[in-house]
């Protein structure tokens, strides 16, 4: 006497019944077999990795090289494993080929996500957009307005780091550098955000939102009789 079969969960079954039905397991097996054994499939991870590199190159947003470390590492892994996958030719290396393909694809996806994060929130070197680049022969109490403008919409950020150089206008005159500083404040923000900056120091500002134009007021403080040159040596936009 046979016991009746319990009812089956047809949604989670890898098999189907009836005419022209194809089991999910069968599809998976076909794909995996093709990916592991077909000569053309071995190139797919490498093509994917190269495509990601090309796309990153066309949308490269610049900024400090250090912020691309994770993207660079993952891209190197994806290219390395994809190349190794191409070199695995023996039919008995199916497991190794599978591991290499998977690692390459995951590294490519991870690298792309890291790149998008840098492109969206990474640091942007905006030094070249600061105007005026330098103001010469400023006396104590002189005011300078620096303007920083980014044209691309994706280059907007909500914070700014600004490094100022304050040097003797005439290097042959008695030096005033140790007596000099600058009071730096944002003009374009409603926030009271003033910094005292010594020569070569960096001030960080919260811009109060994603902005493309930043105006900064600088008041020079120096000793009597001194004339100083003021220059923004580095301006970096970033997201807080």
């Amino acid at each position: 006497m046979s016991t009746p079969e319990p009812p089956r969960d047809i949604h989670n079954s890898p098999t189907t019944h009836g005419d022209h039905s194809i089991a999910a397991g069968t599809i998976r097996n076909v794909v995996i077999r093709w990916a592991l054994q077909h000569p053309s499939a071995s190139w797919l991870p490498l093509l994917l990795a190269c495509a990601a590199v090309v796309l990153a190159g066309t949308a490269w947003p610049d900024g400090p090289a250090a912020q691309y470390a994770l993207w660079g590492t993952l891209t190197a892994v994806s290219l390395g494993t994809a190349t190794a996958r191409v070199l695995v030719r023996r039919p008995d290396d199916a497991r190794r080929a599978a591991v290499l393909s998977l690692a390459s694809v995951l590294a490519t996806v991870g690298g792309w996500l890291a790149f998008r994060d840098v492109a969206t929130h990474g640091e942007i070197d905006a030094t070249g957009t600061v105007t005026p680049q330098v103001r010469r022969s400023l006396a104590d109490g002189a005011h300078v307005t620096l303007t920083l403008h980014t044209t691309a919409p994706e280059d907007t950020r909500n914070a700014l780091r600004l490094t100022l150089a304050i040097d003797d206008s005439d290097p042959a005159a008695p030096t005033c550098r140790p007596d000099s500083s600058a009071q730096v404040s944002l003009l374009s923000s409603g926030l009271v955000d003033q910094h005292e900056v010594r020569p070569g120091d960096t001030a960080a500002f919260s811009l109060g939102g994603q902005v493309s134009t930043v105006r900064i007021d600088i008041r020079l403080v120096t000793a009597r009789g001194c004339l100083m040159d003021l220059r923004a040596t580095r301006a970096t936009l970033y997201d807080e």
Partner: protein
Amino acid sequence: MTARRTGTAALLTLTALAATATACGSADSANTSLFASGRVSVGVKSDQPGTSKLDHYQPLGFDITLANRLLKKLGAEPDFGAVPSEDRSTVLTGKKKDLVIATFSITTERMADLDFVGPYATTNQGVMVRKNDPRITKPADLNGKYVCAWPGTTSADTLKKMSSSIKVYEAPDASSCIEDLEKRKTADAVSTDQMILYGFTQEHPDLRVVPHVTLGPLNRYGIAMDKGHRDDCRALLDALRDYLTGSDWSQDFAAALPAIPRADPLWESHYKPRVDTLDAYSCRDKPAP
């Protein structure tokens, strides 16, 4: 047997090379100290009463006192020699003098080529006129006047930057300017650092420094030496720090330049540098920060 001999020879050669290298290293470090021999050649001005004057080969003035005080602390003695203003840098870079203590202002340009220890005194640029000449009482009064300065100083440049109306000219040296003002009367004024001008009034009672007229930035005098002697530089800096901390500086300054305490009740705050400013200017390639 041959192999053992070769090995021994190689070992001996290496030992000899190491010994030579060590000896050379010791010799270098001993030679680089400016104070090692106990005698230090010091370039000073020869014609500036009060600050530095070689009077019948007897050096006198505040720069001379300073050199004696600091070098004594370091176990050395100075050999003074006259240096014109325009040669103060080249005698050091050309190794003709070990130090220059000659009312030498610290500038960014000079710091690139020389190391300074200082400031040991601070002073504004001022104006000296004949005692009975009331025409110059403020900087604007210099317009249209003949003002004498001498080469190798920062004074002439400061005047030229102030106004193109000032008739600035350079005489060969300080003595020529004084003569132009006092005897020849071809100059209406002489302009250089007030500390130097007050020194001249001590020997030339017919001249006076115009009160409350200061030009340009504050001058800070430093002891200059050629680059490459940072240990000596720091030793001299420590000696200067001690000197400024005690009462010796004020006593020596008032003794060498009595005209300044007589004319300026706040002379110590105007001429004595703060000890906490020394590190910003001393033993560096560029003024801090």
